[in-house]
């Protein structure tokens, strides 16, 4: 699991690469929390899942945590380039409506 964080005009972009599962969830959560600390009100956190190969339920939990904190901060979180497999996971868990997802 790798992540690259970049500052954009509208906020922060984090590109993930690899598997987001129980063993990488904590690292991913830390990256996201750091980004949330930097994030100013009304800015957006963009998560790029183009190179996300696997998403486990533990990973989803991280996203839920992030989504909740984003909402509390009145910011927006968007997940981009969601592959079909990962989309299926979201769909499977009924969370495809909970998150703002964009297909690849």
């Amino acid at each position, binding site marked *: 699991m790798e992540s690259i964080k970049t500052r954009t005009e509208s906020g922060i972009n984090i590109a993930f690469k690899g598997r987001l599962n129980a063993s990488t969830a904590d690292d991913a959560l830390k990256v996201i929390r750091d980004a949330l600390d930097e994030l100013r009100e009304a800015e957006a956190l963009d998560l790029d899942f183009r190179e996300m190969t696997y998403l486990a339920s533990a990973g989803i*939990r991280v996203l839920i945590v992030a989504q909740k904190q984003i909402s509390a901060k009145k910011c927006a979180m968007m997940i981009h380039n969601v592959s079909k497999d990962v989309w299926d996971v979201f769909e499977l868990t009924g969370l495809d409506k*909970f998150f703002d997802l964009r297909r690849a």
Partner: protein
Amino acid sequence: MALRIRAKILRVILSTSLGVVAILSAAAVTGILSMRREILTGGGKIGEIAYARSGESLEEQVRRHIAGMAGDKADLTSAKFRTVENRVRMIADIAGRIYSNPGRYPPRAIDYLHPDQAGQLIPHLSSAPGFSLAAHRDEVYRFANIVDMLRQAPGTDIEIHLNYAGTESGFTIGVGYWETPNETDYDARVRPWYIGAKAAGDIFWTDAITSYHSGVEIIVCAMPFYETANGMRIFRGAAGIDMEVSETVNNILESAEIGQNGYAFILDREGRVIFASKNGTAGDSRNIAGEDYLKHERKDVRDLAARMTRGEAGIQKLDLNGESVYIAYNPLPTVKWSLAVVVPETEVLSPVEENRQNILSLTRTELGNINREILGFFLVIGASVLILIGIVIFSAGKLANGIAAPIIAMDRDARIISKGNMEHVLSVKTGDELETLAESFDDMIKNIKKMSAGRERVETELNIAAAMQASMLPHKFPESEDFELYAEMLPAREVGGDFYDFFFTGERRERLVLLTADVSGKGIPAALFMVTARSLIRSQAQTGESLEQILFQVNNQLCENNEESMFTAVFFCVVDLSRGSLEFINAGHNFPLFARKDSPFSFFESSRGLPLGVEQNVHYTMERFFLEEGDTLFLYTKGMTDMENHEGEIFGKERLLEAADEFRNLAPRQFDEACRQRLAAFLNGAEPDDDITTLIFRYRGKKPDVSRGAL
């Protein structure tokens, strides 16, 4: 590795020690060599200086010797010549007296020399041609008184051949040895000595001239004599003494010790060599007598001759007759000759050269000794260095071993420990930091042991928890004519988040609640969350509320204090056995499989809500349909479909569907086992990384009147 440590230590020690040895050796060798160079040049210099000094002093000595010799010879010769002069003066004096006072001298008979008397010392008369004895008898006989005077000289000195007195009258009286008397045609008045003496009016030395009588080279010392009468001096003749040159000069020169090749020569007033000594081989080999040095081809010789004829004394070095010689010269003032002593330079220098050779050979010997000493010193240094290197290599090796050996031992021990033998102890007793290190390592191992023991305990406890968790799930499946039921939860490694549940509700226990759930994450948090969720669902379900209401409440309760954002997907369904209906809500759960009797399975693609615990106040939508006899519902968690084999392939929904269709006629328990075996075969040894939970419900048909058995 250990070998490298040893090699490193060895290299450092050896290079340092050898460096020091090399520097010291180089310093010593350089010092010795420069000392040697100094001694060599110094020794050579000393030899050269000694040579030069001895050369100079020897040459000086030789010069003095030669000059002294020349001076002595000259003095001796001069003295001899003065003796001759005195004698001539005496003869002349007597002759003058006879002429001045003839009356005092009675006539004495004297005659020409008789041939028989040749070689005898007999006074004799000789006269110029045409001289008449008869006419001058009185004069001759009175003058014959001179004989007593003349008689004194010859014979006493070997070189004096003849004393005589010649008169103006034309006769001469002499005493001496001669071999070929020719006395009747001898006119003294025309002889050089007579003419010279007459002209000089005093002592006169002739050059070397040929004797009238004997034909040999002679010099004549002559003195005029006068008749004194009435205060008048009338020249009457001259007295003379013949000296044979060779005899004279030999007497002078032959006593000279002029070395092996030295010789002497005499230069007359004309610059001619009138004699060269026969002493020494050089004198013999060179016939320089008669050479005119004033006209010599070499200027330095001409200059020398000029100085000599001027009556100077001196010594100089010059090239004479192709040989470098020292020549000392002194005047012989009486005869106005010059006597020279000649010594070849080689002879002069031979002692010098000998001295030089002695010094040089001494120096060489000394240098040879020094060289030997230095060589010996080098040998000692070399041997010392070799011994030193040996000692260094030996002790460095020991030191390196001393350092490396415990490290090697520690490495070996650590390998043993790393293979799992935690009881192994590092036993290094070096008494230094290595021992401390080994002790620290042992302490570390002890702590690791403690930690791993703790971890093992946790693992054990987790396994117990997993077992407990599994045992919490109902395993007693209700026996009923209406349905068949089987469920199984297989945790992956430790306590997990999956669970299933079934229980009856309703006043007549006509409602059968079935569910499978998948909690996010694993481990204790997931397990606790699962327990919470299960209890909440069980208790909420007992309220008899609608499924929607039940999940609404459970979800809200799960969301409270859910800091960790745990959540669980649930497929929650209730079979109303009295009505033969099935109500269900899918809260984020994967789609179950469903099949009618004699029909293939298909996915039960209902609408789906959020998992429980994600967000509060979620409204779930329940769906309902009626069951038919032979309907089979197959609930499973995603462990059943999402697991990968070693090739990274997931089992997937299609394979599950295939398996389900294949085994659809089996009873639920056997069906479950068959499907799990199919999955296991697919995984082919890959360890399951997720819980697998299944629940199979088969409906046998509506039997409204059947009473319910206890669960």
